[in-house]
């Protein structure tokens, strides 16, 4: 079974969970530049990919399963099965703006975001005309410099917002890490994937 893990802190947490669920791969903890880690006896092969690419690897069956944030799934809407909520990497997709500024409806709203599809959908449900400014990082900077009126971004603790004089206006949707599976792999590796899912569910439901 090929497993795509998101690089970074979330990925490490997820790997620990999978390790406890009976899918260890000790070589992954070694300090080196390898990209693929295999444990034949446990029947798994792990690889680290950029978090936003996990869904693509799974959709195109380079990975049978993977772990992706709900933000990525909502943004790209990949054709995959969403089998479990791991309850990790909890945060919220929010609209935030500068403290004290009025959000008026008489102008086109300029929205800076890494998630143009989520932002578009959210505002079109409110019949609001917006100007999307797609950025790749440091979204919080945009309203400070007058590049945008608001931002649509992930908020974990709200500390960055606070320190930069920004405030949350609305929560669009809560986010957490999801276990996703390729639709075809799910059929041909049904037993393996279901077993992994059950183990993970069991661990996740324990406090």
């Amino acid at each position, binding site marked *: 079974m090929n497993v795509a893990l998101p690089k970074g802190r979330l990925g490490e947490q997820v790997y620990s969970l999978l390790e406890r669920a009976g899918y260890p791969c000790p070589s992954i903890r070694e300090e080196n530049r390898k990209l693929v880690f295999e444990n034949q006896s446990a029947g798994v092969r792990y690889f680290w990919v950029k978090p936003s690419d996990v869904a693509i690897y799974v959709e195109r069956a380079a990975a049978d399963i993977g772990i992706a944030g709900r933000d990525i799934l909502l943004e790209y*809407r990949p*054709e995959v099965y969403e089998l479990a909520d791991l309850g990790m990497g909890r945060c919220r997709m929010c609209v935030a703006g500068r403290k004290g500024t009025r959000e008026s409806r008489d102008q086109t709203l300029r929205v800076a975001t890494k998630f143009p599809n989520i932002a578009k959908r959210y505002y079109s449900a409110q019949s609001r005309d917006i100007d999307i400014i797609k950025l790749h990082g440091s979204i919080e900077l945009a309203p400070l410099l007058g590049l945008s009126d608001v931002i649509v971004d992930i908020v974990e603790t709200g500390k960055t917002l606070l320190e930069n004089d920004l405030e949350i206006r609305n929560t669009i949707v809560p986010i957490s890490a999801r276990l996703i599976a390729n639709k075809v792999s799910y*059929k041909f590796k049904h037993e393996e994937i279901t077993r992994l899912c059950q183990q993970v569910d069991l661990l996740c439901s324990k406090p």
Partner: protein
Amino acid sequence: MEPFNTEQLARQLRELYRRCGYTQYKMSKFEPYDLYVRNKSFLVSGDILTFTDADGRLMALKPDVTLSIVKNAREGAGLQKVYYSENVYRTSPMSQGFREIMQTGLECVGDLDLVAMGEVLLLATRSLELISRDYLLDVSHLGFVSGLLDSAGVPREHQVPLLERMGEKNVPALRALCRDLGADGETADALCRLATLYGPPDELLPPLREMIRGARMSAALEELEHVCALAPSNRLRLDFSIVNNMDYYNGLIFRGYLPGLPSGVLSGGRYDNLLHQMGREDGAIGFAVYLNLLERLETAQPEFDADLLLLYDDQTPAPAVLREAERCRLAGQTVRVERRAPEGLTFRTVRKVG
């Protein structure tokens, strides 16, 4: 997997359908845009390539063959069984922009019975079998799913998001949505169960029977049971998470999968509702095989561009060059003749004539 070639497969599929008495349906590359715009949500993708014809009419490069077949099928003329092998033009979520997609399939339009449905399902399994013996055909019955939703009193407008979550096998989201919609616990349990059930018919039919509420679900399951009994049961899997637009589809639906490919290669089902929308009383069932997806199954590229490169120069008489090349070809080799070795091509052996 056995050696594989898309062109050869297209021929074999046509032959398979022809032998069952299906007749070929040929259509032009473009049709009036009207036909498609009226039934836009029936199409796999809503995007249509359009252009203006010489007489000012808006035309479309065909995104689909089924609509044209149904439009041209006469009502009350008995069963119309046709197959097609055509290129269609549509976008797919995985690729940006329009693509030309080679599609082969069949449709059976008219007063359908168990024999007609069974034959179509059997032909779907035979089609997949021509590609790989390890195929799986997922089967579902929309009557069973919508019967459950109707019995729980879920209004139509709320069924769509529920079905989407079912399509993702997304149990946590399905539960949350049921809670938001105020569905009772029993319905929520049944939907979650239905979304995750996956297995061969004989294994799943008993637990499904216990889920029956009302005549609609019971009739749907009975039909599913009878139809499945007509196809090779070891390759069939029941999966109620397959969802299609219920405005068009009803009853039996199915998807075919092959190991080693990232998405389904065959898709089909019963779409009486499309005919009802066109003001007809009878039914239709059919499926399509997406041949463009099979490219990845084609056997590995040959190691060399040709077995032999025969080089010649001004001194070699032309007849001698061609005679020597032909002699080697008769011995089973692929032979290229050139004055100089071509750049970027590889040959098993290189030899000078004479």
